[in-house]
């Protein structure tokens, strides 16, 4: 078995009670690779990440992380959930510093680092706010800071930027790409936004509609990095990729009059 795979799923099956959500999923994420997952709503993308995080057992097949079979929780993974999982009784700052405190770092240093991370995700004014005092997008960014400060080798992200406005989303994408470039994490990133997938990914996996959904297309995104969303919009190669992804998702190809020129 090659040891350069951060995550490997072989013939994996996942059920929710009697519902077969995922069937025969094969998937690999190489070390340092950025992989996006696209698929219609309810096809099992969140389920896929739960499997990768070891929160849910696979009902068939095998999952390997860094070459070793995954048993129980995945200690190499940092998971940013689709619905936020911040502790309501901890302030934004305390939520972000939690991973460091769990590792035994003293509170003062942990909070210093956490404050830096909050600044990086663009939240300077709210360290002492409790989650219920933050907007949906702010909570997402706190969760992002928490996942990033954890600094695991495999980042699992479930529609992390879905609740953000276009500008903030772009800033967050750039931040993620920067960090990814610095630290060479492996990323498995779920999104519904084709542009986002094209901007971020090395590879895009397209899942078909559930139940018994699986990976039907594995599309490489060979665009040079660094990329930025705005210039990609005018790039013909990216437009072609967009069409391919759109097609793969089962939609009609966009008409020539489509505003993506």
């Amino acid at each position, binding site marked *: 078995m090659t040891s350069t795979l951060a995550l490997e799923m072989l013939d994996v099956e996942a059920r929710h009670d009697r519902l077969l959500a995922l069937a025969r999923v094969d998937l690999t994420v190489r070390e340092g690779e950025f992989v996006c997952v696209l698929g219609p709503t309810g096809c099992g993308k969140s389920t896929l990440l739960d499997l990768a*995080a070891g*929160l849910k057992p696979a009902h068939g097949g095998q999952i390997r992380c860094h070459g070793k079979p995954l048993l129980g*929780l*995945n*200690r190499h*993974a*940092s*998971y940013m*959930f689709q*619905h936020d*999982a911040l*502790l*309501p*009784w*901890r*302030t934004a700052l305390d939520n972000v510093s*939690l*991973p460091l405190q*769990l*590792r035994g770092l003293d509170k003062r240093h942990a909070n210093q680092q956490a404050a830096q991370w909050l600044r990086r995700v663009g939240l300077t004014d709210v360290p002492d706010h*409790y989650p*219920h005092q933050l907007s949906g997008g702010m909570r997402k960014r706190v969760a992002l800071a*928490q996942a990033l400060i*954890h600094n695991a080798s495999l980042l699992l992200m479930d529609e992390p930027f879905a609740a953000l406005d276009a500008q903030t989303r772009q800033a967050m994408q750039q931040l993620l790409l920067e960090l990814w470039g610095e630290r060479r994490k492996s990323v498995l990133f779920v999104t519904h936004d084709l542009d986002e997938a094209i901007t971020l990914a090395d590879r895009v996996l397209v899942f078909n509609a559930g139940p018994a959904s699986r990976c039907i297309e594995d599309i490489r995104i060979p665009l040079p990095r660094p990329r930025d969303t705005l210039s990609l919009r005018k790039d013909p190669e990216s437009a072609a990729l967009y069409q391919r992804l759109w097609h793969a998702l089962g939609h009609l190809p966009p008409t020539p009059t489509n505003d993506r020129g």
Partner: protein
Amino acid sequence: MSWTTLWLLRAALLLAMLSLWSWLAADDDLAFFVGHPHAVLQQLWRWLSTGNGSLELYWRDHLLTTLNFPGTLYPHLLITLTETILAFLLGLASGLAVGLWLGLTPTLARVLSPFIKAANAVPRVVLAPLLVMWLGLGIASKVALGITLVFFAVFFNVYQGVREVSPALLANVRLLGANRWQLVRIVYLPAALGWVFSSLNTVIGLAFVGVVVGEYLGSTRGIGYLILQAEATFDVNTVLAGIIVLTCCALLFDVLLAGLERRLSAWRQQSDDEPGRR
């Protein structure tokens, strides 16, 4: 409505109620049942300023010290307050501990659940004679009765709080590297304390009721005992004075704990927030 009008209206209402009371009390036959405001005030004053106000503090059979107060009421009040606070603290601690423990060990909880339900169904007041037989007429039996009330209220809510912790929260904190003990400290305990902190007021009310009823059913000291004595001689004014003292104590607890509650529950969404948010 402005602040002044509000308080003026309240004062007017109080005055109206007192007038009605005086008017009813003018009739001697009725006064036997409803007492008289003036006589009640006099009784309160007598309690505060005259009579034997000494309180002997024992440890086992050894006299530690004797406190002397200017009136009969003080030692009784002190006893009742001590009992209340003890019942509150002990009931809170035991309810919290057992609630957490059973919440974290579902199998044990399943085994014990019918027994707990049965224990909670026992009308607590009927335990009083039993507790007096076991623990004597002193403060221990009153504290025990208060604890039986406080314990179950705290226990059930802590248990519920632990069981209802969102799985996503648990999953997140576990993935961030928490071991079992950290999980208890960081997730379960705060989730359980959330309820406790937001209902300290109710809980101390329960302790108070348990203690006073205990005194009333058999004791040698305490406000409940004063009321019991007065009742035996059909002295309605003294009974009313006792009730007023108890009400004042309850209000005092209320004010003290409301402030504490607010401070400890700062992370909670205030109910008057916009409803759109979770």
